[in-house]
C-alpha cells in the first residue's frame, strides 16, 4: 500500500494531551445528534473554517499532511486517493460514503452515524468541497436502520441550516447529499459493488481498472471513503493537520475507533491513537478478560484478518506492525477469543459468514466457500479426516489470490491462520471426535451434534 506521509524525524509535542478524541469527543453529550446541540459544541465551525481558509486543493494537501488513512479496511492514504481524481472530466464527479459496515467485529461507523450523524455530515461536506464534488451519496447498511434514519435526519437539518445546498455559507460551493439504504449484502461494502448497488444493479464488484477515481458512479470520477475516515475531517480542519499527525505512529497517524469485542469485560468502541498496544486495549480499556480467562487468539481487524496468537499481545495496533505480524489492522474490529473457545467452531462460524456473503460472481469464492464450510463442519462435528486439514489449506491456496475481489481471499484468513496456530486442535477433533475445549469437548456432545446434522 502506498503511503504519502513523509518520515518524521522528531516527534512534535502532543498539542491536545495524550488522549485526544478527534472523533468521539462529544459523543457523551446528550442530544449531540440534534443540530442545535451539535452546533452548540462547535459543530459546523470546522466546515466554516474549511470553506473560508482553504482552497479545495489546499484542503487536499492538508489532509495529505495529516497522514489520514482510510478507516474502511485497506488503509489507503486519504489525501492521495483524492488527488487521483482527474482535474477535468466531462461527467459529474461524486463522493460516496461507505457506511455499509458489515465486517464481523466492526461497529464503529454504526456508532458514529447513530450518535453523532452531524459529525459525518460535516465531514462529507468538507470532503466534497476538497474534491470539488457537488453530489455526495451516503450508503448506509440496510440493517442499520437507526443509523440510516439518523443520517437522513441530519442531512435534512443541515439542508435547512444552509450547510447543504446552493452557495454553502456564502462560499459559492454547492452540494447535494443523498442517503441510500443498502439491501443487506456484505459485498456492497466493497467499493465497486457499492457503486453497482447505488446504481440499482446487483451487488457485484467491478473489474478494475478502471478505478472508481476515473470511472466510478454513473461512470463519473468517484471518491469512496469510509464513515470514520470522513468523521475525522472536522477535527483535522479545526485543529490542523499537524495536530492530527502528532498522534499515532510514523506511518499510521491520528486516532482510530477500535471496536473491541469478544471475551473481554467491557466490549465497546474505544478511540485511541494508532499504535495502541493490544494489551492496553484489552486490559486497560476493555477491563481485561471475562471470568479471568486467558487470551487464546486475537483477530485484530475484523473477521477478514488472520488471527494472531496470545504471544502477540504487545503488538502495537498500527497498519505496519499488524501487517508485519502476519495480519491486518483492517477495520480495527478487534475480536478477542478466550481459551475456552473451540477454534474450529469459531472458524466454522466465520466461514459460514463468507459462504453466505460471497456474491457468487467468481468461481473460487462461490464454490470454495461452499466446500470449506462443509469440510470445517465435518471436522467440527468430529467426523472429519486428518487429510481434511491439508485439503482445507489446499482449497484456500486455490482461492487465495485467485478470486475476483478481496472477499474471497478474506474467506481463507480464518482457516489458514487457525490451522497454522491450532493444528493440534483440528487433529484433536479428528482423533477424539470431540472439541478440545468448550461445551463440545465431550465425545457425547460432538457425536450428538453430528447425528443431529
Amino acid at each position: 500500500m502506498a503511503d504519502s506521509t513523509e518520515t518524521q524525524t522528531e516527534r512534535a509535542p502532543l498539542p491536545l494531551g495524550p488522549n485526544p478524541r478527534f472523533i468521539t469527543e462529544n459523543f457523551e453529550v446528550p442530544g449531540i445528534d440534534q443540530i442545535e446541540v451539535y452546533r452548540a459544541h462547535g459543530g459546523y465551525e470546522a466546515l466554516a473554517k474549511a470553506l473560508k481558509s482553504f482552497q479545495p486543493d489546499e484542503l487536499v494537501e492538508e489532509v495529505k499532511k495529516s497522514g489520514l488513512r482510510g478507516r474502511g479496511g485497506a488503509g489507503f492514504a486519504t489525501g492521495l486517493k483524492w488527488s487521483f481524481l482527474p482535474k477535468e472530466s466531462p461527467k459529474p464527479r461524486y463522493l460516496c460514503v461507505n457506511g455499509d459496515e458489515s465486517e464481523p467485529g466492526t461497529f464503529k461507523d454504526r456508532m458514529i452515524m447513530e450518535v453523532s450523524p452531524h459529525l459525518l455530515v460535516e465531514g462529507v461536506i468538507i470532503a466534497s468541497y476538497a474534491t470539488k464534488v457537488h453530489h455526495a451519496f451516503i450508503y448506509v447498511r440496510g440493517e442499520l436502520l437507526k443509523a440510516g434514519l439518523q443520517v437522513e435526519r441530519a442531512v435534512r437539518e443541515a439542508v435547512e441550516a444552509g450547510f447543504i445546498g446552493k452557495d454553502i455559507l456564502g462560499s459559492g460551493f454547492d452540494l447535494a447529499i443523498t442517503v441510500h439504504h443498502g439491501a443487506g449484502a456484505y459485498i456492497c461494502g466493497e467499493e465497486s459493488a457499492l457503486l453497482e448497488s447505488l446504481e440499482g444493479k446487483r451487488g457485484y464488484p467491478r473489474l478494475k481498472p478502471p478505478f472508481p477515481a476515473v470511472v466510478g458512479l454513473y461512470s463519473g470520477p468517484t471518491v469512496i471513503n469510509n464513515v470514520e475516515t470522513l468523521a475525522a475531517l472536522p477535527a483535522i480542519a479545526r485543529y490542523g493537520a499537524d495536530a492530527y499527525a502528532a498522534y499515532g505512529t510514523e506511518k499510521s497517524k491520528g486516532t482510530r475507533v477500535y471496536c473491541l469485542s469478544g471475551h473481554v469485560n467491557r466490549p465497546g468502541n474505544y478511540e485511541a491513537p494508532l499504535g495502541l498496544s493490544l494489551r492496553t486495549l484489552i486490559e486497560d480499556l476493555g477491563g481485561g478478560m471475562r471470568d479471568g480467562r486467558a487470551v487464546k487468539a486475537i483477530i485484530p481487524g475484523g473477521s477478514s484478518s488472520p488471527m494472531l496468537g496470545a504471544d502477540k499481545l504487545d503488538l502495537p495496533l498500527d497498519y505496519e506492525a499488524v501487517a508485519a505480524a502476519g495480519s491486518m489492522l483492517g477495520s480495527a474490529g478487534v475480536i478477542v477469543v478466550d481459551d475456552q473457545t473451540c477454534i474450529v467452531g469459531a472458524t466454522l462460524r466465520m466461514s459460514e459468514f463468507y459462504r453466505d456473503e460471497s456474491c457468487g460472481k467468481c468461481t473460487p469464492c462461490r464454490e470454495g466457500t461452499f466446500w470449506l464450510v462443509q469440510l470445517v463442519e465435518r471436522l467440527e462435528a468430529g467426523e472429519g479426516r486428518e487429510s481434511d486439514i491439508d485439503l482445507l489449506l489446499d482449497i484456500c491456496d486455490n482461492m487465495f489470490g485467485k478470486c475476483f475481489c478481496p472477499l474471497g481471499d478474506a474467506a481463507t484468513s480464518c482457516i489458514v491462520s487457525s490451522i497454522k496456530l491450532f493444528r493440534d486442535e483440528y487433529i484433536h477433533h479428528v482423533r477424539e471426535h470431540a472439541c478440545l475445549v468448550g461445551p463440545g469437548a465431550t465425545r457425547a456432545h460432538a457425536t450428538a451434534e453430528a447425528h443431529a446434522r
Partner: protein
Amino acid sequence: MAEQVEELVNLTIDGRPVSVPKGSVVWAAARKLGIEIPIYCYHPKMDPLGACRMCFVQVEKMPKLATACTTQVAEGMVVITDSPQVKKARQGTLEFLLINHPLDCPICDKGGECDLQDFTLRYGPGASRFDLSKRHFQKPIPVNEQILLDRERCIACQRCVRFCQDVAMEDGLVMQERGFRTEVGVEPSAPFDSIFSGNVVEMCPVGALTAKSYRFVARPWELKRGATVCGQCAVGCNVLADVRVDKLLRQYSRTNDDIDDGFLCDRGRWNTDLANSPERLRQPLIRRDGKLQSATWDEAIALVARSLGEIAQRDGGEAVGGIGSTHTTNEEAYLFQKLLRVGLGTNNVDHFHGRFPQGDNDAQPWVWSDSIAGLERASHIVLLGADPYLRQPIIDLRIRKAIRRGARVWVVSPAANRLDRLAAGAIRYQAGQVGAVARALLQVTLSERLTRGAFAEQRQASLAERLAGLADATPEAVSAAAGCDAEALRTLAREIAGAKGAVILYDEMATREATGETLAADALDLALLTDNFGRAGAGVGPLLEDNNSLGARDMGLLPGSLPGYRAVDDEQARAELSAAWGVRTPEAAGLDYDAMLAGGVKALYVLGANPATHLSEEGRAALAGLEFLVVQDLFLTETAKLAAVVLPAVSYTEKDGTFTNTERCVQVVRKAMLELPGARADWQILRDVANALGLGWTYSNSAQILAEIGRTTPIYAGVSRHGLGQTGARWPLAPGATEADGQRTLSGSPFLTWEMLAQGVAKGRGSDQLALSAGRGEQA
C-alpha cells in the same frame, strides 16, 4: 477505405513473439498464436467479466496470476500459459466448478460440445476431492417457450445474462440469489421474450441452457455441420447447418463479423421446416382429369418444355412469362431469366418486390449503399417504415450495437417497435403514410436549406424544382394526413442534415404502401442532398424482404433489366450477351409482375413464388384459367394447387449456390444435406427444361453457372466460389489478389458512392438521372 493504421503491441507468449492491436486482451493474442487459453465467462463479442477464473496465465513482473481475458497486452509483456502455477490454478478452478456440477453428462445434450467436459479433459484434475453433498435444484425449468434451464449444470459464467442485458438490451435472463445459491432466472414481470433468445443456448458453455427442439435428439458427434448461409431473411447470417442423417436440427453461428457478428435470430436457428416438413413435395405432379397426380420427372419436364415451347412458337415469346423467386440462389435466378429470354424469347420476367422508381426504362440498383457493419459508425440511424426486429432481426441487433456506440436512432413507423425504448425519437404515422413522411422530411430539408455537400451544390438549379414538387408535403400538411407530429418531422430532418453520418433505411415492402410509390427515391435524395452517402456509416437503402431479394434483382429477374442492371435495350449489353448466350435477347421491355398476372400471358412459369396469395378471387381464377401454369416449389402452395404441372424443388440447405444479402454481400451457399428424395435443385430442373427445349445446357454444377454470371454480369465480374471465400464480398466485385496456387480472390465494395452508381454500377446513366428522379415524376 482509408482505415487508420492500428497501433500494434509486441509481446511474447510461451516464448513466441506476437503483435496484436493495442487494447487487445492476452487471450486474443494467444489465440492468434494458436495457443488455447480456456475460457468460460469471456466471450469475444462481449466485455470481459473476469468471473470464472479459468483463463489464468502468468505474466512476468505481476505478483499474482493474471486472467488472460481481462489483462490488456503491453509492449514487451512476457506471458506464460503453462507454468506449474498456471496448471494448478486451472485445476483448482475446474475442481471448484465440478463440485456442484451434476454428473449427468451421459444424458446431457451438451456432451460432446461442452467446454466443461473438454477443458476438464485437457486441464482438469483427474479426480475430485469433493466427497460431500452437492447443491440441488429442480431439474430443467422453462425460461421461455423454446429454452429450458438446468440450474444444477450452470457454472454462473453470466454469458447468457450479459447477452440479454448488454447485447440484446432486452428483458430476459438475470442472475438471482447470491453465493453458492446463485442461479440464473427470469423475473416474472420481465419475461424472456426475445427473437434473439437462442443465442444464449449456443453461448452457454455447459448444458444449462438447452433448446426444447434439440433436447435428446442428437449427439454433437453425429452432426454433419454444413458451413452455409441462412436462407430465412435478407440478412444472410453465416451458419453451420447441423444435420443428423436426413434432418436439419438447428443452425449455429459461423461468425461473420461483417454480417451477423456471431449471432443468429431464433427463426434462423430453429425454423427447420423448409428442410424437414412432412408437407414437402416428393414427386412431380401433373394435372390429369382435373386433379394433380404423381408423375415421373421425365414426363413432367417434357410436358413443361412442350407446353411452353408450343405457346411461344404459336403466339410469340410475349405470350409466355415467368415469375421468379426471392429465395432461390443467384445461379437459379440467372438460369430462370436466361431460360425465358433465350429459350422462350421473352423479357416477361419479374418477381414480387417493392416499388422502386425507374428512370428511362432503365432498371437501377435500388440497394443499401452502405453495409451492416457500417451501422456501427453511423451517428444517426433512421428507420422509415422498417421493423428489423421482426423482419431482419440481426440488423436490429447491429443497430443496438450502434446505439451502444452512441448512435441516435429514429424509429418512424406505423406501430410500436421494439427499438422504441432505445431510440432517440419515435414518430408514429397512420399506416400507409410512410411515403408522405419521407416527402415531408425532404420538404423540410429543401425549404429550410439544410442541404449540404458537393452533390447538392452541383444541383442547386434543380433543387427549387424539387421543392416545388413537394408543395403538398409541408410538415403541417403531412402531419394532418398522417397523424404525426410536425415538429418531430422538422427535428428529424434537421438531425439528418446535421448528422456526422446518417443511415436511412426503409423496408422494401413499405414502398408498396399507399403513399410508398416514391419512398425509395425520396429517401435516396434525402441522403444525397444531406451528404449522407458514399462512406461507411452514412447511406440509404431498402431492407429487403427475402434471403435473395437482391440477388433476384441483380440477376435480372426484371422485365426491363438484364443481369447486372443493364437495360434490355442496352445495345452493348445485348451484344455481349448474345456472344455469351448465342442468341439476341428481345429489345422491348417485358411485362411486369402485375401485368403478367392480370392476363398478360397465356403460359406462366412460377418458380419459388406464391402469387396466388397476392391475388383476389378473380385473379386466382385467371391464374387457374391460364393455358399453362407450371409451379416449381418445395410445397403445394396456393399457386401450385392451380397449376398444370408442379415440380418439387429443394431448400437452401440441400444445394450449392450463392445468395446476395440486403447489403450487396454475395455469399457462398453450401449443400449441407442430401436432397429430399424425389425433389431436385431448381437449377437442375431449369437445366433439364432448357435441354428439353433443345438449348443444350451443359451445367453440371452451380459453380459453372456462377462462372458464367462472372462473365456476363458486370457487378459480379469474375465471381467464383473460391473468390467469395468464407465471408463473401459486396458488389461491385473486382479482382483481388492472386494466390500462390493461381486462384484469384475477389475484393468487394463496402459502400457505394454516388459516382459508382452513376458511372460504373449501372452503366450508361447520366449522373443526374438517378437522384431527383422522383421530382421528375419518373415511375415504373
